[in-house]
């Protein structure tokens, strides 16, 4: 997990660095109205990890807009359990937030820590990260259908980066939708997974598109499908998994949650700030380059989304016998 996170994050640092000069002259439309001069973002990822970079990139642009100094605090360990408990027990005054990704739901369900996702207030969602299915350039598979046909003979070998992850779940769901049995192998991080796809140990791997950008550019890996609901603007030639005939859609969200009881005016300030930020054309260029899709969801919508996500995941984990 750590290596995937690091790799991911690092790819995301690119926008952070590019942001440096652009923020200087951004118009501070709401500057000074936020009740705190310093706001803490808590993340479970280590410096340079996925959420860490997401937060730092966003903070460098939101800072001048909101007139707030942002501090990113890396509370690592326990698959996010320590970070969750740090925020769940903090004062709900808008001075501290937690960067939520699917892993906070997975950890809550798998490990049952003292504070779970249910102890945090959804604030606003920012992005969706797209999961893609890839294979090595010289593999015999031209479509996802070819991969499934091989799995039907009982010899499918599919890979995901880590055990309790959305990618793993995506593959399990795909196998179920196609009614095949495939060996689904999880790894210690994205690096191992990519190597095992490159050396032919695995038929396919699943991960975020930005993780394999280098291999795609040099044509060592090919994309077979995306797990999104519709084709991606950046990858118009790649079909969705659903188009390939298997009704599986998987969404990796990146949003903010806060301590329970965060007041409505604070939530509103964040809804406005994030909505405006995502519309900024310069920022849009940066995040679409990193294959992130803007997915602004205000609190009401985000709560429903998270609730559904958690129920889905729980049902899935229960059905596959991982939890009881």
């Amino acid at each position, binding site marked *: 997990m750590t290596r995937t996170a690091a790799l991911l994050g690092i790819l995301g640092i690119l926008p952070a660095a590019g942001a440096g000069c652009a923020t200087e002259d951004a118009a501070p439309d709401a500057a000074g109205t936020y009740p705190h001069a310093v706001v803490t973002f808590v993340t479970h990822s280590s410096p*340079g990890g996925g959420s860490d970079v997401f937060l730092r990139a966003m903070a460098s642009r939101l800072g001048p807009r909101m007139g707030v100094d942002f501090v990113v605090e890396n509370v690592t360990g*326990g698959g996010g359990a320590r970070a969750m408990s740090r925020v769940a027990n903090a004062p709900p005054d808008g001075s501290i937030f937690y960067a939520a990704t699917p892993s906070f739901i997975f950890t809550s369900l798998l490990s049952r820590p003292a504070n779970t996702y249910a102890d945090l207030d959804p604030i606003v969602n920012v992005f969706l990260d797209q999961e893609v299915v890839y294979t090595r350039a010289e593999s015999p598979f031209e479509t996802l259908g070819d991969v499934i046909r091989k799995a039907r003979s009982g010899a499918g070998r599919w890979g995901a980066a880590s055990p309790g992850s959305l990618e793993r779940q995506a593959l399990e769901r795909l196998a179920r939708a196609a009614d095949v049995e495939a060996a689904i192998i999880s790894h210690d991080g994205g690096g191992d997974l990519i190597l095992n796809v490159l050396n032919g140990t695995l038929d396919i791997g699943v991960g975020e598109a930005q993780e394999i*950008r280098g291999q795609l550019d040099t044509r060592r890996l090919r994309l077979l499908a995306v797990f999104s609901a519709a084709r991606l603007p950046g990858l118009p030639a790649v079909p969705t998994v659903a188009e390939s005939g298997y009704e599986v859609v998987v969404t990796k969200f990146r949003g903010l949650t806060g301590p329970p009881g965060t007041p409505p005016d604070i939530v509103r300030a964040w809804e406005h700030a994030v909505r405006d930020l995502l519309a900024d054309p310069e920022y849009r260029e940066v995040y679409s380059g990193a294959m992130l899709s803007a997915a602004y969801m205000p609190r009401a919508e985000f709560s429903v989304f998270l609730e559904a996500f958690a129920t889905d995941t729980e049902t899935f984990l229960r059905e596959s016998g991982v939890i009881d």
Partner: protein
Amino acid sequence: MMEAVVDGLGMLVTTPIALAAGGGVAWGILGGALPGISPSISMALLLPFTYGMEPHSAIVLLAATYVGAEYGGSIPAILIHTPGTNAAAATLLDGYPMKLQGRGGEALGISLYSGVIGGFIGLLVLMVLTRPLADLALRFTPMSYFALGVLGLGVIASLAGPSLLKGLAAVLLGLMVATVGSDPVSGVPRFTFGQPDLLDGVAPILVMVGLFAVSELFLQASREVWNRASSASARIRWPGARMRRRLLKPQLIGSAVGTVEGVIPGAGGTIAAFLSYNEARRWSRAPEEFGRGSPEGIAAPETANNAVAATALVPLLSFGIPGSNSAAVLLGGFLVHGLLPGPQLFDENADAVVGLYTGLFVANLSLLVIGGAALPVCLWLVNRPRPILMAFIYALILSGIYSINGSLFDLGLTLAAGMAGVVLRVLGFPLLPAVLGVVLGSLVESNYRRSLLLSGGAHSIFLEDPAAVVLLSIAALLVSGSVIARIRSGSKQEHA
């Protein structure tokens, strides 16, 4: 290639690369020497500062930090029985006995000298053999990783100390500790007792620092050694001509092992250090000195882990896949400046690659200079009166461990490992196999289970993978060789 090197040397004059290399090394030594601050954390701490830097200097700064940190870990290993990094644990086996014999300055000199040699050899290999070595990295399947882990555990057969049985008991203890945390296949928590701090497992560095350093402090406090005056001079001693000849063989072994292990993503410096230590002992003319202060026992692992620092860049430069956490941070350094490591880097940004090579070259040179300047200070520090020194070491260890995650739980774990270390040492169990068990446990377990998932449960899959067959055969040879040697020397002693 020659032309590129000349160009590279030219860059030294025109850009502040030399400054970056020197600064990175100094920072790396400091981070490496602090227990708990790993090479990758030292690098990650610097990463934000490189955003505004010129790309070549930024990359050199990070790579130099890596070089410095891999070396820095050996300083506390030799002086205070505390491995500053995972890979330095093997250095402690002979470094600390040398320090106790008043030869601390000599031990530090040997470790620095060997580290620099390992760094240069690794760099040479990186420059000349990146492409063929990349093919080797690509051959590593889960089956091969399992075999590699078994090979690492095989070292125990010869390093278990006087009793093989006690050695096996210790390795089992280590393997048991390695099973704590999330299951590598299902993600379900195992043996965590509802404690969220245990979900990520027990970090090997906590166990190492506890078993080696804390137990040493506990035992020292209860022994006469407390009062023994430290008369060693605060001067670093470079190996003389005869010693340099003697160190040639272990250094050769260290560079060979380090080169290969570095290239394999995820294998890393720790396995390299232990394997090369073991081989250096096997091929040494004075194997009985090992564990009692053999200079060769310092040279081999130190050459190996510094060679790893260079060759770990092979998978990064050839596929853009970081082979270690440190390489992952370096990848960040590349991407921040719009450079995408991978085969295309050599064509599109050859100057960045040459800049990196040059930077590593200068970093190894500065390691010699900066290391040489820093060591007398460290020696002076450890020659302070015992009570002050002991307090200082406790503070150093505990603050280092605390700074990893800011977790009091980690501190408790380290102290508990220290208590366990005292018990093991008093009962005559060797510590090394326990540490190897913790380090290699998850590598062996997760790849074993992955392999069986791939084969649908058939063990024959290990025999179908060429790299696994080679590694398992070597492991079988090493273990049977050690066991036979053990039986022979045992019967010799009976006759004597």
